């Protein structure tokens, strides 16, 4: 019970903090003071206070997609183990459901972007679609091979990786962590895949899709994209953490790891520039190769 | 007295026609003859199957047995269909009395000679009648009196005469191969097979097969066939490819039976299969690029004769299959040719690409055209499917795997070729649609649709459920090959 409540609280708060930390880090590297950690939270509140402007061309799809995206992301978060190595909804093949629930959100956001009939948003949608098409297989290979390793198909299994995988365990953990980290960059549209604070629509991906959203819709979308990042961050945390920790410890470790990841993202963003649009797919495809490596490792460790 | 009657009656009616040349009378006499022939064939068939002896003066020379009764029935059926069709055809092309009379006389003589060839129980005699067929049908092929028809007739008569003379060589060698007996009656020939000299017999068969094969339209001596079929009036083409080819084939089967019972048929079988494959191949070559739809049908007749030859060549179940194929191919192909007659009259062109969207000008003909294609292509419910299936089975059981492969591929190509033309003709829309409206002033009488319809119905029924009576008859016939 305590775990569930903690998890829900984390789901509600962490995204804002995560964004805040990233921005802080960027500011630090940029030698600025930067906004407060809770800035994005204030933004949300403000957006909820504002009214809304909707395009003439928009249909009901446009009106409904933000809350569908929010709902799906939230539900996906419920499927993922956060601080404690079991998820709130812990079922067999949970990660399949997870992937497809996120898929639902993505589908809605794509058609939502197409709905207003602006050329920029169509462009963003097409890029988003192409990138996510490359992300999924990697995710599935990694999850499948981890499941094969641990021998159970619920999401919690990944945190019991350490106990099952013998000598090669560390290697697998590192590789899996890297994959998830890349997924964070893609799904959260951070550098080098996309630059969240560019001002040229032609180079945007996620930002350009939400050009026409305003008010609460915008708040929901920003929140859910942040939540996505947190979800994958907590996946990394669970991969790294063993499943037999005392819960206070695991909570502390978990927060630590998420914090570190946020730092990493921020640092990366201030360190390197974004890739050319045509190279992004190659960058994303790296994940699949890593995933195959993990699979090979699993095969080796199971059959030796 | 049955056989005498059916042999004399056509001649009498010819004489009658010569005396008073009348259009209606000629059509009527044709139909009467046909009905008489059908009745006779059915009664003979009945008598044969129930062992009833029908007294006959010329019973020595003409008699029915299990094999030729099938051919006789097919002959009668197709003839009736053609006779009914012609009564409408004569009106549609509005022949004047004289011409119509000659037309009927020609057909009667043609049928008479074929009847003789089918029924005669003596090798040489049936040869004589077969030669007679090519002479009697010559006039019918030249009926249109155009340059092309003249050329076709010349090729037909000349090539066939040479072929048939070669056939006679085969007969002579057959007599030579049997020193003791000096008779060409089948019963004597089949009586004691052990006495035959195998080499003689085989040489004889080679001559006979190539000679009579000319008439049966087997490649490589098929070459007269497309010309004759395309130039003759459509009902005549129906008779030619529906009956004449079978008649020629009957003789070959008679001869082949001797080889079988003398147990020296291996080379003959090989030769038959070769010619069969060759025929199908030839059809493949031309069906893809032929411009004239009647020629296309002619080629498909060559193909089907080839299939039959293969079936006979394999033996076993193949013979049964090829008999089925033979019977139903005649029905299907004759209705196909009659339908092509409708199209020819309506569009006044034999070129495939001049004709399009028949379904608009005359939907019934279009559907007949389509269904005839289905019947010929061996797509169920066509009985030709059964035969092709069984032939493939026989080939498999005889372990001719390569031949199966070739067979299937060639058949597929042929079906593609025919399908393309037929479908484009019946449904396709061409650039010059405008003159189509001018052309469709011709009104056909129902007699130009009825025969094909009936034949197709027969085909459809027997394709799904082969009447046991027929299938036993075919079995008996197969035992005579």
């Amino acid at each position, binding site marked *: 019970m305590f775990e569930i409540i903690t998890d829900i609280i984390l789901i509600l708060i962490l995204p804002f903090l995560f964004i805040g930390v990233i921005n802080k880090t960027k500011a630090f590297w940029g030698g600025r003071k930067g906004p407060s950690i809770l800035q994005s939270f204030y933004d949300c509140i403000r957006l909820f206070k504002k009214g809304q402007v909707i395009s003439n061309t928009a249909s009901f799809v446009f009106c409904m997609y933000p809350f569908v995206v929010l709902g799906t992301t939230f539900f996906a978060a419920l499927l993922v183990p956060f601080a404690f190595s079991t998820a709130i909804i812990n079922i067999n093949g949970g990660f399949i459901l997870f992937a497809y629930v996120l898929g639902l959100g993505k589908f809605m956001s794509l058609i939502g972007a197409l709905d207003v009939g602006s050329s920029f948003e169509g462009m963003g949608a097409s890029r988003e679609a192409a990138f996510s098409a490359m992300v999924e297989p990697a995710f599935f290979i990694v999850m499948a091979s981890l499941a094969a390793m641990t021998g159970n198909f619920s999401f919690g299994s990944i945190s019991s990786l350490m106990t099952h995988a013998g000598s090669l365990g560390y290697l697998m953990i590192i590789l899996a962590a890297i994959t998830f980290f890349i997924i964070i960059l893609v799904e959260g549209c951070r550098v080098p895949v996309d630059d969240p604070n560019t001002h040229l629509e032609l180079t945007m991906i996620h930002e350009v899709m939400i050009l026409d959203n305003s008010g609460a819709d915008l708040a929901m979308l920003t929140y859910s994209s942040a939540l996505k990042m947190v979800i994958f961050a907590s996946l990394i945390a669970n991969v790294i953490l063993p499943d037999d920790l005392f819960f206070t410890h695991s909570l502390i470790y978990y927060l630590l790891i998420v914090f570190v990841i946020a730092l990493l993202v921020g640092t990366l963003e201030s360190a390197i520039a974004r890739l050319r649009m045509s190279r992004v797919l190659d960058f994303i495809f790296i994940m699949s190769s890593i995933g195959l490596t993990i699979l090979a490792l699993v095969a080796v460790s199971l059959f030796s | 007295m049955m056989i005498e009657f059916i042999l004399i009656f056509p001649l009498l009616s010819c004489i009658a026609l010569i005396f008073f040349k009348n259009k209606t009378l000629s059509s009527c006499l044709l139909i009467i003859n046909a009905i008489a022939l059908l009745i006779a064939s059915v009664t003979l068939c009945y008598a044969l199957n129930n062992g009833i002896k029908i007294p006959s003066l010329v019973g020595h*020379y003409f008699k029915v047995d299990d094999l030729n009764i099938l051919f006789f029935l097919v002959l009668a059926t197709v003839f009736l269909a053609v006779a009914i069709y012609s009564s409408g055809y004569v009106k549609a092309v509005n022949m004047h009395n004289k011409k119509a009379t000659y037309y009927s006389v020609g057909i009667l003589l043609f049928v008479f000679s074929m009847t003789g060839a089918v029924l005669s129980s*003596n090798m*040489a*005699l049936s040869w*004589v*009648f077969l*030669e*007679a067929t090519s*002479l009697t049908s*010559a006039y019918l092929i*030249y009926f249109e009196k155009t*340059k*092309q028809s*003249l*050329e*076709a*007739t*010349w*090729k037909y*008569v*000349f090539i066939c*005469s*040479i072929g048939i*003379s*070669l056939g*006679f*060589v085969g007969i*002579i*060698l057959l*007599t*030579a191969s049997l020193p003791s007996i*000096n008779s*060409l009656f089948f019963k004597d020939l089949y009586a004691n097979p052990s006495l035959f*000299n195998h*080499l*003689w017999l085989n040489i004889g068969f080679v001559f006979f097969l190539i000679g009579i094969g000319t008439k049966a339209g087997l490649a490589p001596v098929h070459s007269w066939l*497309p*010309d004759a079929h*395309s*130039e003759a009036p459509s009902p005549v083409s129906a008779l030619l490819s529906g009956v004449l080819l079978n008649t020629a084939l009957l003789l070959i089967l008679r001869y082949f039976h001797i080889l079988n019972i003398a147990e020296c048929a291996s080379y003959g079988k090989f030769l038959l299969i070769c010619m069969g494959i060759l025929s199908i191949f030839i059809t493949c070559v*031309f069906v893809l*690029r*032929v*411009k004239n739809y009647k*020629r296309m049908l002619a080629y498909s007749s060559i193909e089907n004769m080839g299939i039959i030859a293969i079936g006979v060549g394999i033996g076993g179940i193949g013979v049964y299959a090829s008999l089925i194929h033979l019977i139903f191919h005649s029905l299907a192909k004759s209705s196909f040719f009659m339908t092509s007659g409708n199209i020819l009259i309506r569009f006044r062109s034999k070129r495939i690409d001049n004709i399009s969207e028949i379904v608009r000008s005359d939907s019934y003909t279009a559907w007949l055209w389509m269904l005839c294609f289905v019947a010929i292509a061996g797509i169920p419910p066509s009985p030709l499917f059964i035969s092709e299936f069984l032939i493939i089975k026989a080939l498999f059981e005889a372990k001719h795997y390569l031949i199966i492969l070739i067979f299937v591929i060639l058949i597929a190509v042929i079906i593609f070729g025919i399908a393309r033309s037929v479908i484009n003709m019946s449904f396709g829309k061409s650039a010059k649609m405008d003159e189509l409206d001018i052309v469709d002033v011709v009104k056909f009488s129902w007699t130009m649709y009825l025969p094909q319809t009936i034949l197709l119905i027969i085909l459809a029924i027997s394709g799904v459920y082969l009447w046991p009576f027929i299938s036993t008859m075919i079995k008996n016939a197969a035992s005579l090959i």
Partner: protein
Amino acid sequence: MEDTLVLFFAFTMLYMSVASRLKSSIKMLCLQGLLLFLIFNQLSAHVETFNYIFLAFETLVIKMLVIPIFIWKIAKKNETFTDTEPSMPRFYSLVIATLILFFGFIFAAISRHHLLVTNPIPFGISISTIILSLFFITVRKKILTAIIGYIMMENGIFLLSLSIEKEMPLVVNAGVLLDLFIAVFVLGFLVHRIDRTFDKDTMDVLVQLKDSENDD
């Protein structure tokens, strides 16, 4: 005796294969008819009278007189007296004809041993005659010559049927004769028609009906 006659027959074939004038080949046809009559006198002594008379009639009247005269009439009507140049030079055709005849003799020799033919020379010659006349037809261009070739072939077949000591029943013989006669008649009629329609009497004009053009 009969062998000499048969040889004579063979020489007529040789002559025909090089003959360029229509008249001479028609004469040869008459000669062949006569020869056939003599040969069949020699070969088959024991024939019942009806058949004998019939065959005599066939050879002496039909083969020797009626058909040649008929053909000659057609030739006169179409003013075709000389054969056009055959598609292969006469010399070669002579060579080939000789070879074919030679093959005939060889075949006769074989047939004596393996096939137990009673009188092999006529047999071999008749076979080679048939083949030779087929060759003749394929080489020559004129339609009339083709018909002559066809008649030669029929003669060859007749010789063949003599060489094997079997006579057909009368009905059959009659039928065969009738067919031959009508065939020649029909062919002659056609020749006349062709000459009228195409005003040319070689087979080269008869190439309208073909599928060999490849325009697609």
